């Protein structure tokens, strides 16, 4: 929780959703140099910087923070939009399959079993990469509306933003899990 703090302000940014990732990274690096204890900064300030960065880096959390600053709440309750809900089954089972293969590989006692798990892993890696692209596309569709949200303002878009937050929260979690599973399958 921000505790009333304006995370955009921490980076000298306006309260606009449409933030360029590269820009944010550069400002983060610069602020790090300024407030890290090594440069004589206070530990609390550094910790706030970390929270602010994590918040703004995630589109879901950025959107929620933007609403909070306007005194509104991004509703956690409500349905998850169809394009995301439809993917739930497929992505869950893909992640589960990756987990199973990783376990088989880890527990293997013979070269044969290990190599079968490796070969399964390679097949999976292809599917994992596809799923990652899909998830990125879906996230991108929501994030591309941020400019529009900025123009219309938080009060007007509160409901739609709530829906976006729910969708993006799932998508971000999947992106993370798929990335880890993909990395694991890639380094056997």
């Amino acid at each position, binding site marked *: 929780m921000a505790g009333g703090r304006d995370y955009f302000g921490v980076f000298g940014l306006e309260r606009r959703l449409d933030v360029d990732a590269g820009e944010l990274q550069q400002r983060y690096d610069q602020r790090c140099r300024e407030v890290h204890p090594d440069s004589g900064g206070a*530990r609390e300030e550094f910790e706030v910087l970390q929270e602010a960065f994590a918040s703004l880096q995630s589109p879901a959390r950025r959107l929620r923070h933007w609403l909070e600053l306007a005194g509104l709440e991004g509703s956690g309750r409500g349905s998850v939009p169809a394009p995301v809900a439809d993917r739930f089954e497929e992505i869950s089972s893909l992640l589960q399959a990756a987990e199973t293969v990783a376990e088989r590989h880890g527990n293997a006692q013979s070269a*044969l079993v290990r190599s079968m798990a490796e070969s399964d892993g390679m097949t999976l890696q292809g599917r994992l990469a596809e799923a990652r692209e899909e998830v990125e596309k879906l996230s991108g569709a929501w994030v591309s509306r941020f400019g529009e949200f900025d123009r219309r303002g938080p009060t007007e878009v509160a409901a739609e933003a709530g829906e976006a937050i729910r969708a993006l929260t799932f998508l971000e979690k999947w992106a993370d899990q798929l990335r880890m599973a993909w990395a694991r399958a*890639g380094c056997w």
Partner: protein
Amino acid sequence: MGTLRPVADPVIGIDLGTTYSAVGIVEAGFPILLANEEGERLVPSVVWFGPGEVKVGRAALSEAPEGRLVRSAKRCMGLRVNEVAEGDLPLEEASGGGVAFVTAEGAVTPVEVSSIILTELKRIAEFRLEREVHRAVITVPAYFNNAQREATKQAGEAAGLDVLRLVAEPTAAALAYGMNKLGERARVAVFDLGGGTFDVSLLEMREGVFEVLATGGDTRLGGDDIDNAVLALVARATRLEDLRVQGEEGDRLRREAVRVKCALSEVERATFRMSSADGAGTLETEVSRGALEGIIADELGTMKRICREVLVDAGSDPEELDAVVMVGGSSRIPVVRRLAGEVFGREPDCSQHPDEVVAQGAVIQAGILAGTWRDLLLLDVTPLSLGIETLGGLMNVLIPRNTTIPCKAGELFTNAREGQESMRVRVLQGERELARDNWELGNFDLSFRRAPRGKARVGVQFSLDENGILEVLARDVEGGGADVIVKIESAAVDVSEQAVEQMVEESVEHAFEDMKARVFAEARLKAEELLPAVEEALGRLEAGLEAVEHEEIVAARREVEEGLAGDEANALKEAVERLDRATEALAARLVEDALAARMGVGRDDI
């Protein structure tokens, strides 16, 4: 490289290594390692305790060891007596649960030994700089836990140094590596195999910011273990059941093992040769590089596993890396370089001086803290998850591993019963589900005001500082008032617990008193895994198997089935090994096929 300002009170950078240490300072914008009177920049991390005198480094090595020479003290820093195996010297428990080396002059702790080495390094710096030195940056393995880090800090303070920062060794190496590549953005793995510790870190370097993405390691894996492997080979070849590694003969054995190990990095075969103390006989045997690589298979497997975990933690594919930098004396070993190359999918970068690069990095960090470079920054992480034990004996993670430090996490505690006055909290570091499988950092008692159940509230803040060391603050949420620093009691070694553990181990041993039963059981497990796998593999790849190959597999499989039905341990073991070998080619082809499918090409194109 930024404007240089004269530094009033210099900060030295120290690599406190398991086998070698070094000290340096920034001079005219460059990290320079300082040499002693003999012109040596590397000081062996050994201390000799004589009657009324102490010697460090090469001077210590020139004395007769005779139960007076302490080496590799770093391996025992911050450890409890039940966590260490005896090496050259006998060990005993020190007050507070740590260990102490029993020398001819009495017991001495690893912190004391390290502080003596640090005192010598301080002396060298003052000798070269012709002025007093008070402040230092000291390196630690990235994977050092809380107690090991605190012990290092204490050693520095005992040597009269204000330890400004503990910097992780692979991070320091990355700093030295990346210093003259600041304009480029890069993702780099640092593979650091030193005398006693192994660390792998994945970093991103962007315009002067060095950010650690993930780190992993083993604080009890290093060159020393490879020395022991050489001795094991010698013992096996000469049929000496146990080579005495303690005492003067032990010391000469170790030195010869080190010489052979280093030689095998240059040549394929080397002769281990040592005459006995009384000159009566000579121990002589040839050691081959292949044999050494074979006997350290477990260690190599561990390194591989850790590298892969770090890649996963960082969510990174090996292809995304720009370099893998080899650090540490033992990274010179050919099989280690091959392993790093294999896991990270590229030729390892051996451009850095493996023994000096960490020290150079420590010096650069010292320079950063002294204000020499304003645009450089190290963002490091905590290597181990930090948490507390909860009801049910589980570990509740408060700060996950690879979180950027400094960082903090808070937890609210309340009284479970009316009038409960205190609650014991056990603080843990590690990745396992169960509290007892993790390493206990310590514990503390939280006090509650008298209140109905659930009404007393104490907020506890767990804070990891820039050194990765824990500080705990508690605050009575209901009563207001200031934060109280909570003193963590180091986990006492419960001797009876130790005895119980030993008992359990012994009973497991006795259960397998019959070696044959154990061999059979192990072979059976492997057979039970292999048989269905062979079925499946044949199903996937039957076409394209040569008749001869297929016949051998069928024959070997039949032998395994017969072995399972019988009770001859060795027969089953050999049959399983035969099947394993018979399916090797099959295994390789499965992987090739999958790779080809992935790349969308024919198998023969690979």
